[in-house]
């Protein structure tokens, strides 16, 4: 693609640039499939070296947004610039500088681990010998060196994800897109993956990821936007969002279901006034309070007898519930 690459027209005028341009700038970005609006006019910016997240439930428009940013889905309207290039006209040049970790692994089962990396590097026209050098280095990084010459098939889900991440790094990208990087992995595999991503971030790679896991967003993101039904409903740092939309602690109460009439309504009356506010979910009641233990003591003092109680720090899950009235993973 080097042949098609050209300098962005605006570049010569930037000799007096004062602010480094954002890596991604989206203005009123929309994506529509027929009558269905997947992304409904969103604005966001991602700065170099930042770790930026799209958080939201399935169907919120995260993946559609990521596919537009990945230049594999034309935008319906609005403006999208990546590396100060236009996503609509410079897709190939943008993709050349970007690594993509898709939601579903796209590995060639017939090929070995190292062959999967080499072949991917060739798509970027990296010379074969250089592909092999980078592959060896990246397998070291994702701790798969000893599996290099094995077929991909028997690898565990976590290993395949790590291999997919290694593959996305073959082109030494400035920007890495990760679509639900740890969905379907067990807790240990997730922690290994988070650790590798954190190291990438420390090396200065800009990370953009989608997730519907709150803990993942809290672990990985400097800044995130919460998406719901194609729109951005909140933006900020994980901590900032929690401070803004939740209390310091949450008291979770479980009552015996179905004993006296409508169990959803029953405790809501009795707990009125405890904490800042409460949410009643089908399986539990959440009380948002600065001091969870004090709230629990008050619950007991009122003679309520939940079968289970838990005091925890509030999380982005609570932020999402507050913003949309729904839990994140249904």
């Amino acid at each position, binding site marked *: 693609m080097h042949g098609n690459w050209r300098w962005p027209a605006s570049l010569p005028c930037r000799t007096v640039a004062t602010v480094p341009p954002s890596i991604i700038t989206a203005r009123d970005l929309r994506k529509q499939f027929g009558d269905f609006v997947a992304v409904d006019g969103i604005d966001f910016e991602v700065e170099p070296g930042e770790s930026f997240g799209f958080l939201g439930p399935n169907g919120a428009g995260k993946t559609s947004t990521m596919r537009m940013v990945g230049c594999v889905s034309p935008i319906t309207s609005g403006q999208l610039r990546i590396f100060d290039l236009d996503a609509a006209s410079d897709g190939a040049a943008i993709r050349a500088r970007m690594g993509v970790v898709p939601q579903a692994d796209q590995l*060639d089962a*017939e090929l070995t681990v190292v062959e999967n990396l080499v*072949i991917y590097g060739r798509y970027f026209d990296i010379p074969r010998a250089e592909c092999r050098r980078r592959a060896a280095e990246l397998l070291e990084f994702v701790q798969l060196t000893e599996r290099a010459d094995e077929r991909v098939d028997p690898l565990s889900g976590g290993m395949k994800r790590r291999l997919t991440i290694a593959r996305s790094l073959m082109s030494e990208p400035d920007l890495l897109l990760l679509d639900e990087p740890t969905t379907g992995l067990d807790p240990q595999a997730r922690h290994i993956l988070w650790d590798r991503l954190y190291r990438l971030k420390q090396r200065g790679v800009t990370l953009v990821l989608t997730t519907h896991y709150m803990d993942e967003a809290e672990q990985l993101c400097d800044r995130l936007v919460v998406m719901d039904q194609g729109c951005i409903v909140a933006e900020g740092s994980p901590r900032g969002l929690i401070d803004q939309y939740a209390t310091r602690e949450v008291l979770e109460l479980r009552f015996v279901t179905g004993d006296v009439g409508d169990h959803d309504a029953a405790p809501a009356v009795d707990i009125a006034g405890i904490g800042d506010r409460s949410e009643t979910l089908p399986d539990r009641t959440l009380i948002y309070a600065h001091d969870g233990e004090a709230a629990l003591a008050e619950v007991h003092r009122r003679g309520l007898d939940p079968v289970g109680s838990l005091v925890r720090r509030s999380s982005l899950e609570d932020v999402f519930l507050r913003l949309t009235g729904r839990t994140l993973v249904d």
Partner: protein
Amino acid sequence: MSTPTTLRVWESQAMVYRKIWRSHLLLAFGQPLLYLLAMGLGVGALIDDNTASVESLGGISYFEFLAPALLATTAMISAGQASLWEVLDGFLWSNRYRAMAATPLSPTQIATGLGLWHATRTAIGVTGVAVALALFADTRTWGVVAAVPVAVLCGLAFALPLSAWSATRYGGTSFPAIIRFGLLPMFLLGGAFFPIDQLPDWLEPVAQVTPLWHAIELCRGLVIESVDPGNVGVHLGVIAAYVLAGWLACRVTFTRRLMP
């Protein structure tokens, strides 16, 4: 100096093929050889005794009639196999084409590279048939060499339209029907085993619009060295029309699938 994008796609396909080349080549070489022995020599012995039959074959032996056609039929079958489940796999299971689309490669470049690969794969298979033909004195002519590229073009005339179709699919349910009601009847009735003027009158024009019949006629003419120069252009033109239409269709369906 950068590698052309189509070659990068081609490399990827070749790397996967390296794992399965033995079975592909064995099938491409062994299956026509069986037909040559069973039909060409076995059935041929019965046919060649009958003067009326030899006349309807245009004065050549049944072996000489059948053998060159196998270059074209093998190209069709081999290309058909590589264009159904294997192409769907790239969109659905291995997601090879999706992975490519996330790199600087565009859907059109991916489709074109795949076409180049289809041509290579068919050429390998057809060369296997050519070697089988060269084992027999009756078909050991330089015309066999000239017939190989014709058969490759015939392969593309099937591979590209079928790849375009596979790129629109979300499962392989239509594929057995394509083989049973499309490729197999063409193989049996398309002029390989008997001249198409033996077909019912309504079916003969159908056979004449298939790329397979044109490829068979041309391969046969080249191998037995009695090609009618006036028809070469028509035969090549029809086959090339399918190739071009298939490539244009691939561009559309690959782009729709990979860049929704």
